[in-house]
């Protein structure tokens, strides 16, 4: 059974239909890419799946359960993590604290645990710190743990965003343009990080414009154009698809 099922998803902003009757599913363990020209509705898809926007119509099923109406934080706690197209960090906090905040959903300590520094508080703090270091290590920025997130290089910030997303061990990670703004020589390393995420058991869905990266990484590709799904298939199938070539590839990788 697929991990996430998107069924006839539609999202309108006033008169603009950003996502129009789109259906696809994400297979557990696979890397799926969503591609399409600017304004195709890729980020909007992510925003609806993760609960930022309510769907206008359509349904979302995660592990068989209907998550369409769940609020943001509840979607995250089900095991769906995401990064943002414009890298979102807790900019004035250290990289380590960023990752620790990402682990909060796995901890239960509340106000009275804080006041009394209960054994649970201390255990969960230790646990959060360990997982945070592990996530930073995985993302390759352990040496920057004490640095303020906002002062990291663009490239390191992208890695930190991934560390924040995976620290609580979600089942599905949505990456919105993970290599945008990353310089050419760093790109391969980012690709390698995404491949490693998949090997580590995360189901990955990414939105990306860099076609060579997408073609190299993705098991399946979904193509959006003007809010509609115009194609879906393996990289080879997509490359051979006339509609895709016309809508997108023709201009992007001529």
């Amino acid at each position: 059974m697929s991990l996430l099922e998107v069924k006839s998803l539609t999202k309108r902003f006033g008169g603009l239909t950003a996502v129009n009757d789109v259906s696809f599913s994400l297979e557990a363990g696979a890397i799926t890419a969503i591609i399409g020209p600017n304004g195709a509705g890729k980020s909007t898809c992510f925003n609806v799946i993760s609960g930022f926007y309510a769907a206008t119509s359509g349904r979302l099923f995660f592990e068989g359960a209907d998550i369409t109406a769940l609020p943001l934080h509840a979607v995250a706690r089900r095991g769906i993590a995401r990064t943002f197209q414009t890298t979102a960090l807790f900019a004035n906090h250290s990289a380590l604290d960023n990752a620790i905040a990402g682990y909060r959903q796995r901890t239960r300590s509340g106000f009275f645990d804080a006041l009394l520094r209960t054994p649970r508080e201390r255990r969960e703090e230790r646990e959060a710190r360990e997982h945070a270091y592990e996530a930073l290590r995985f993302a390759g920025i352990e040496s920057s743990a004490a640095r303020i997130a906002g002062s990291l290089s663009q490239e390191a910030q992208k890695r930190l965003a991934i560390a924040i997303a995976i620290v609580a061990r979600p089942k599905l990670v949505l990456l919105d343009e993970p290599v945008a703004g990353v310089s050419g020589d760093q790109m391969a390393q980012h690709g390698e990080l995404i491949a490693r995420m998949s090997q580590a058991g995360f189901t990955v869905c990414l939105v990306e414009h860099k076609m060579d990266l997408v073609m190299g990484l993705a098991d399946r590709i979904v193509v959006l154009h003007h809010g509609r799904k115009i194609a879906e298939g393996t990289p080879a199938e997509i490359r051979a698809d006339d509609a895709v070539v016309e809508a997108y590839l023709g201009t992007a990788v001529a």
Partner: protein
Amino acid sequence: MRTRTLPAAWSLTAILALALPAVVHNPYYLQVIVGGYVTAIAVYGLNVILGYAGQLSLGHAAFFGIGAYTVALLETRAGLSFWPALAAGCALSVAIGYLVGAISLRTRGHYFAIFTAAVGVMIGVVFTNDQQLTNGNIGIVNIPPPAPIGPISFESPVAKYYLVLAALAFAIWIVARVRYSLLGRTLLALASNEDLAASVGIDVMRAKRLAFMLATFLAGLAGGMFAIFVGFLGPDSSGLDVSFDMLLYLIVGGAGTIAGPLVGTLGIVVLTQWLQGFEHYKLLVFGPLLIVLVRFFPAGIAGGFARLRWRRTATP
């Protein structure tokens, strides 16, 4: 970042505070300091909602007033003794804080600030105009001090000083514990980036509401202390201008820091007293001083020192 100088500074502060009544014999000066402590307790509450959780409340003094009037009325009208009256004052402040938060924290942006300002004004109107309940502008007089606990009586100014100091220490303990906890991290995270916090599974609304309840608890506690330390309570203790004063103390001291509310409140309260002699000219001193502070200590006094220390330890 928590170096060894920090506990040392706090110990020194505690010793100074404990020894103060032995040094300051003038009851008026003592009164000014106690007043500063009381306000600082409320400012610690403001620090939780604004400094930690990043939500601007402009009605903080109203919750101070709720605590104060509850204690004053329960003591003078219902004959309740101080401690249960204080508990009731804190509880009522938190309950109203819960309601206000539930309504106004859901939306983003300036809505919470505007809503709390409006609530503050409304509650202030009740305090000022209700002749039956709060006795309007005349206020409530002869609010009795707490009954003695064993051999300890709270009649004298010095005894009240220590009572308020204990309440202040309690407030500082709470906010310090919260600051360095998973809950504190949660609040700081949502203040830093609310969307990201929500996307990593933090129930942002719940966390903000909790922060506001703690903020209103401390405001209520401060109000209760205020009622008994002066023995008189009028509506000008809890108007919108007082909310803005508290905001000023917090920002000058350093929002989000542990020492900030105390440094800012005592600093400005004492300075204001000292400038009293200059009459209206005091603003000529006060204004430029604020500008210098904002220019050179954008994170407040305590925030500025924390940054200096950070820089020293970061570049060995």
